[in-house]
């Protein structure tokens, strides 16, 4: 069922038109936004229609998810008051899941002109958001990559190593797509495959479809290492900037707290560990109490930006 019959597409479109015609009459619905497969992809018999309905701002109208049924098709309706819709669009980082969902969508109608304006800005991707999303994707990829390398080196278990590589494939694909300043889909690997087929064939297709050998798995791991190394500055710039700026050692807890607070990003310690392995920053330690009641202090992992410049005093 690769290509659905034209009748399916027609059935979905008619069901949607029918439903939208009814919803337009509802004075509490300001706009309808078609998202999901029907908006930008191909539907099949088991698809449903994803519809975001922007409601009026009223105490009695709340955010809700409803499973509707129109013309024999399931419709997943997501009701959002206008203020919340605006906040979600303006406040969500570009390329986050919610943003991608809405950005790939299509405004079907609106009774409020300002909603068209809000939707119009969905496609503008800012550099700061890109940087944060790249860092997030990289911090998601790194733990799986470490695991893969560990299973390869310590056990030589090719299947399990390949599984971890496949876990890393999705965040790596996000890096590829976001790095190209494109909107990342929910199905991001096919998107990335188009952009960088050589790399994703090694780490994805080969790990899925061919018999895994030590050579092919090692090749995939090395390809990932090279891939990250070539993009280190692009992916980890905020971390390098922060540690350069503070100058002295910062504990893992402090670094995590800073990135959570300033960028809403978690798991940055893994990124620091990677940068230390690359020799771009140094490892240090700072004293810490294990519990609030501890009477001794042990050393916590810390990282520090170190320079070679000779003008020390």
């Amino acid at each position: 069922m690769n290509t659905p019959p034209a009748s399916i597409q027609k059935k979905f479109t008619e069901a949607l038109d029918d439903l939208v015609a009814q919803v337009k009459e509802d004075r509490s619905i300001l706009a309808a936004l078609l998202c999901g497969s029907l908006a930008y992809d191909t539907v099949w018999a088991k698809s449903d229609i994803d519809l975001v309905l922007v409601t009026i701002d009223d105490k009695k109208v709340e955010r809700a998810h409803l499973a509707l049924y129109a013309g024999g098709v399931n419709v997943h309706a997501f009701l959002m008051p206008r203020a919340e819709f605006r906040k979600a669009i303006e406040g969500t980082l570009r390329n986050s899941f919610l943003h991608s969902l809405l950005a790939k969508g299509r405004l079907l109608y609106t009774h409020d002109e300002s909603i068209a304006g809000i939707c119009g800005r969905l496609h503008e991707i800012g550099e700061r958001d890109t940087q944060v999303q790249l860092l997030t994707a990289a911090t998601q990829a790194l733990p799986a990559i470490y695991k893969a390398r560990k299973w390869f080196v310590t056990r030589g278990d090719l299947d399990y190593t390949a599984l971890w590589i496949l876990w890393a494939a999705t965040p790596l694909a996000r890096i590829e797509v976001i790095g190209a300043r494109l909107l990342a889909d929910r199905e991001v690997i096919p998107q990335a495959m188009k952009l960088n087929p050589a790399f994703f064939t090694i780490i994805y297709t080969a790990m899925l479809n061919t018999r895994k050998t030590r050579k092919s798995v090692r090749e995939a791991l090395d390809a990932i290492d090279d891939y990250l190394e070539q993009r280190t500055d692009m992916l980890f710039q905020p971390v390098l900037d922060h540690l350069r700026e503070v100058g002295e050692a910062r504990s893992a807890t402090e670094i995590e707290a800073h990135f959570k607070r300033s960028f809403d990003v978690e798991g940055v310690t893994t990124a620091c560990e990677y940068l230390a392995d690359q020799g771009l920053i140094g490892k240090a330690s700072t004293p810490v109490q294990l519990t609030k009641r501890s009477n001794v202090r042990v050393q916590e992992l810390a990282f520090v930006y170190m320079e070679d410049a000779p003008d020390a005093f």
Partner: protein
Amino acid sequence: MPSRTAKGAARTTIAVQGARVHNLKNLSVEIPRDKLIVVTGLSGSGKSSLAFDTIYAEGQRRYMESLSSYAKRFVAQVAKPDVDFVYGLSPVISIEQKTISSNPRSTVGTMTDIASYLNLLYATIAQPHCPRCSELTPSRTASQILEAILALPEGAEIELRAPLFKQYGEELDFVLTEARKKGCRTLIIDGKPVDISAEVELDEAKVKDMDAVVDRLVVSRKHEKAIKAGIASTLLVGDGLLQVHIVKGTSQAEAERFYRGLCSKAHHFVYGDIQPEYFMFNNPESACRTCGGLGIHKLTHPELLVPDPRRSISGGCFVREAFKYNPDTWDGRVMYSLSKALRFSLDTPWEKLPETVRNAILNGIDHRKIVLSVPPEAKVKREEGVGKEVGFHGIARRIERHYRRYRQRGEASSGMEAWLDKVMVEHTCPDCTGARVRATRLLFTIEGKTIHDVGQLHFDELHAFLGRVKPAGRGADAGRQVLGEVRGRLELLLGIGLDYLSLNRRSGTLSGGESQRIRLSTQIGSGLMGMLYVLDEPSIGLHPKDNVKMIATLERLRDIGNTVIVVEHDEETIRAADHLVEMGPGPGVHGGTVVVQGTLDDLLACKASPTGQFLSGKRRIETPMRRRKGNGKALRVRGARENNLQRLDVSFPLGMLVAITGASGSGKSTLINEILYKALWKRLVDTRTLPGEHDGVDGVEHVHKVVNIDQSAIGRNSRSNPATYIGFYDTIRDLFTRAPLSVERGYKAGRFSFNVKGGRCEECQGEGVITTQLYFMPDVEVTCGACKGARFNSETLDVTVRGKTIADVLNITVEEGVSFFAGEPVVGKKIEVLSDLGLGYLTLGQSATTLSGGEAQRIKIATELSKLQRSKHTVYILDEPTTGLHLADVERLLESLNRLVDAGHTVLLIEHHLDVIKTADHVIDLGPEGGHAGGQVVATGTPEDIAACKASHTGRFLKAHLRA
């Protein structure tokens, strides 16, 4: 059976039948209602047991009984007092001294509720100002703003913008992320739109104004709800402020008319929906972001970080919590590298290091770098990083960074606070400068004063200031009503001598007496009648001149139709009573009955009444025939200026009984507790102590020890008792281990402890009672079935000494103990001292939690007396030691204090009690008034010298007393 009133007539008495609480001996007593009743008697005679633990507890319990089971789950239940019945009870309120809040969020303003009224006043009539240029800015309701917008031409496009403020100590990234989370993607920074999803290149230091574009809307009645929601969102982001920016769709004239009608001229701001909570520092949305509404911020203090400057860095000069040199850690390598860079030795004593080096170690080397090297003594020679450059921000800065992070997390951990207190001291918050609220709240003024300014005024000044306020325009009627309410409450506080307090004063810094009087004023303010008030020594901490006002307040409470029961020793209050009840005749087991009750004349006529004897002058505390001359040496405090002290130079002669007197709030406690005691403690015990501001203390070399004997409990739980506190319990346990049976069974001292396993009863874990927690009923405490309350197991109780088990010994009174331990010099001497101080009625194992403040203080004095060292000069400091003491007890207290002085030591007393002041060898009178009008030395010399000083309020009252 109490006398019955005629059918239909209201009961005129409160009748207690068969009260057996604590030492009450099946007591039955009848007290008139709607009168001022004073319950007096010796310390421990059963006054509080009758007034608080029987009458109040029963009244409270009956009220609780009336609640539904559901409601009972939310309130602590009161156990039924051991009394047959109490007739004639009405709703009862107790105003004790114990419950002083240590919560830093509690202030005089919140205690009195005046803070809430002020918040309301500011929300109603205050003039708001523009955050950018301070021009007057309108304040409207959200509906008014909505209507103004809807009056624009249909189809006009507007932007709702909210001002953003840079936050103290935060990077711009944080502000941007916060704005983003609130749904704002576009900011107007210094007039230019910036998309914050893109890379933002800004010079943080140069950024002046930031506005977030919260919403963009098309004006139309059909979008009314969207505009309304937009206004609400914008006010939330803008902290109560918003800007309406017309994008298109209006003419120039229409736009100008709109701005003129709704917003401020220069920056088009309008405040919206300002509610009283906007000014409330205990509201997280209004509290200063840096200090969380506490008004204080902690900073490290060099003297706390380096308690012993004679030590070197490698020798551990830093307090353990701050830094410990270890060549094998990263910090050790950095410190070693710093020493190489700055050319100093880690073995040089801290005090000998140059100032620049000490500053670099504590506060860092700014942007400069040091080259990393490995200390030669490091066990592990790690080479990574060697030769590279790193920064160093300093030990003090690191702790302050940890503190900021701790505050940001909004945690409250006592462990962390204790850690911080070891190395940091409180300073005024640098963000709000002590105002506790966000800066936008301080843009509202009444007669030019912000809500913080008003809270700083003393009550007399505040009362006068509010009298000058003339509300006008919007909210004038409501404002007048609120003003009347605030002034009325202030008048009550002024009426009881609290004119020197201010609303911003922290509750934790109030004395027990001050806090009691504040609560008393709120009760009077309620204007209720038919209530029963039970008060505990309201005269404490009051200068005689203020005591007169307090008595007048109690009479007023009675006159509006209430029954007022006061537990009191103060002569003036006793004389003012309508009805007196004297408990006694002795303390503890010797008390628990009514010695006499009736009018003052009945009391004076009763020969068995110690109070009557004192009041009639038949018995009195004698004025000493001669004053001691001291040992010729003195302690001299120079330039004392903490709180309201006005650069005082004060000499404290040594070898004397010295009384420090003065009106409430005159600075006595600051001078003695905050400066003299802490300065001595710092020099003699712990160098990390930080005394209040002063230039220095001379003569410390004449003093070997300083002891503060206060009224705090001698232990926190039931496992502490006089025997464990004074320390003779160890000797008693040794006595039991030497008993033949113990020797035979091989029992060691631990066997006779109820704190450790082995000898104690495991059923109750040595408590003697078992507490069962019930769901919506009070906890039930029953005597342990296994040990029958003995606290020890049967094997341990097999051992006896002179016929008594260890449990029996803990249950004997001090009086009995004197004869029982007559042959044991160590224990005997200590028990004798307790008996001499009038504590003969206490049992040796009496739980610390059942002791009054006065009893605890006398146990501490007994401890000191039992270890007197004549060769070492000790300064004893006591703050109002007569609290809770009857005149007969005061007599005994003075005897024991005189024994300390006669042994060559110095006793410093902060005191209002004229009988104590007149017996002092030397008096230092501060004043002349409290607060701003205090802080000076009014007179010094013998009590006679003070009495001769016309400027001294104390002198005036003392003169009459000495004459009597």
